[in-house]
């Protein structure tokens, strides 16, 4: 029943040792700006709660200290995580890697892409960035989303991938 014929694996194109393209470094700035805006919420909450509770000075250091530590960590982590991201455009697929502790590499073959989307938020536009999203079948869990691309690169990628999708496929 079970057969396992040998496959000439050496002849397959490999996705190891590729020239990864980095994300736009300004994306780090954007992440930090978002972090700065986000941190306002817990800051307001802490100020409000400690004032209501009438907390005094040495104890006040605890929540603010924790918040500051988290903020500093996220500030540093933004740069580390962006540096760990990268993408490769190949003839028949696109690969994207991300993650510092849990690293992952997603490969999306062009002949499985349903549609392509670029989007940019007001922050993105301020920094000249955009996101590229590749949709395949099978749930949103892993639709490939690449944030922090230069806006014109995202547009070029979109057009290029669009041209590549759907080629050489028979209809069901």
């Amino acid at each position, binding site marked *: 029943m*079970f057969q396992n014929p040998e496959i000439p694996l050496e002849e397959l194109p490999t996705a190891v040792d590729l020239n990864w393209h980095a994300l736009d470094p300004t994306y780090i700035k954007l992440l930090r700006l978002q972090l700065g805006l986000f941190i306002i919420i817990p800051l307001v909450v802490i100020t409000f709660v400690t004032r209501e509770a009438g907390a005094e000075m040495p104890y006040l250091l605890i929540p603010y200290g924790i918040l500051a530590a988290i903020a500093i960590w996220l500030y540093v982590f933004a740069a580390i995580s962006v540096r760990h991201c990268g993408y490769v455009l190949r003839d028949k697929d696109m690969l994207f890697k991300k993650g510092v502790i849990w690293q992952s590499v997603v490969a*999306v073959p062009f002949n499985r892409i349903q549609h392509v989307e670029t989007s940019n938020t007001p922050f993105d536009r301020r920094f000249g960035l955009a996101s590229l999203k590749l949709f395949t079948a099978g749930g949103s869990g892993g639709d490939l989303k690449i944030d922090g691309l230069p806006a014109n690169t995202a547009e070029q990628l979109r057009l290029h991938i669009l041209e590549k999708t759907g080629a050489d496929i028979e209809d069901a």
Partner: protein
Amino acid sequence: MKTLDDGGWHRTSPWAILFFAAKIIKFFVNNAWQALAPLFAYVYASQQDVVTSLIIGGIAALIGLVVFSVLSYLMFRFRVGQNSIFIREGVLKKTQLDIKFERIQGINTKQNPVYRALKLVTVSFDTAGSAGSEGNLPAVTREFADSIRQRVSTVEKVTEDVEPTTDADIADLPPLLQLDWRDMIRIGLADRRALIVFAFIGGTFEQFQDTYESWIMAFATRMFASGADITAVQGVTVFVAIASVVVLIFVLLSVGAAFLRYHNYALYLDGRRLRSVGGLFTRHEHSMDLEKIQTLRLNQGIVQRWLRRYRLTARQAKSSDHNRASKSFDIPVVNDAQSDELRAILQVPEGGRLTQVPRDPSFQPVSAFYMRSILLYAGAFPALLAMLVTWPVVGARALIVFLWLVPVSLVAYRRWKRAGYLHDDEEIVRRSGFLGYRTSGLLFRKVQRVTIKQSRYQRRKGLATLRMQMASGGIYIPYIPQDVAMRLRDYILYKVESSTKAWH
């Protein structure tokens, strides 16, 4: 908007503002907690009375809604090209969406009462399997919707659908599988609902033992009073008997349900289409094209293990409409040999040579470090957290939470023992389970995306987790050697990218 071919940018009818307003409201309802938090903060912080605050907040929300809806409408533009439809939208977050006609599987139209009065419809495009953002064209005329539908259908190539045969023809086909009355009993016994009732009675019996005892005593006392001679032991016996009868009734009910649903069940292969017929009063007919199968799943629960039977499910791509359930074709009972035979038929011409029977010795194990990850994330971390939280209250007794590690170790061991995979050059089968077994098989060429994931620890040990995303959902193989995962990934990409066949 009258013609499709002018190639220019179009806006939809201003009534689309209603659509956008509904969308915004829906967004806020879905994210109610986050959306309402600032409102509550505002109400709490402001010194005015609650009613005034709510009125002011409500008015602000209403103004925001109207402004946003109008802007959404103004920003929404679309263009119908020769082969695709291009949508631009978004107020703050701007989005460009291309939908190729050949990707569109269905065009759905919806009408709310206002649109019905205005003879407008909202068109949504059903693209195979993608659960992501589907395109919507709100508030367009029905003629326009029809013309788009026509345009898309002309692009679609002629499908080579086998004409469905009639009932008379099906009788001529040799059945692949037929179920008899014994199988009905097996289906009934394996029905989870019977098991749940059983577990529930067992659970409540332990929980409310005292209550039961007092009932039994009361029952016994009454028996005494009526002159019957009965001891407490006999009372318990009576109670157990009653509980057993209840369980038996539920088992009988599920066996009855199995007869209703599957009586005279037969499975046929009609060209390249799988068909099943069965049922006592209502004849249930199902069919599925073999090409549409994404994954084959063989399931064995505890009862089924004891019966040495499985449930075989052929899973189709998830639909992108709102009930995100994946469509599937169920074969309720098969044994080892039947599962292999059916598998060989369902996965031809390319696959079907592998077995999905979980106890097959050809399954390769995954690394034992897999147990460590379960122990760590489901055992040690939660236990440590629980201990830290409870320590200030109960002191050293908090250490008792580490007993949690005992069941988790058991689970980790069982899950590792059951995890496994086997593959040939066309397909791969993944085995998993805790009490029972589950094996999922798929053809490499139908994979949608491949991901390799590694934690720091996995990298150190040269291990990786391979995830294959199918249109019917993801299948992952945890903790296999890194080089095997990478070779498999490269091979899957090669199979997918060199395949010219449709995956759905």
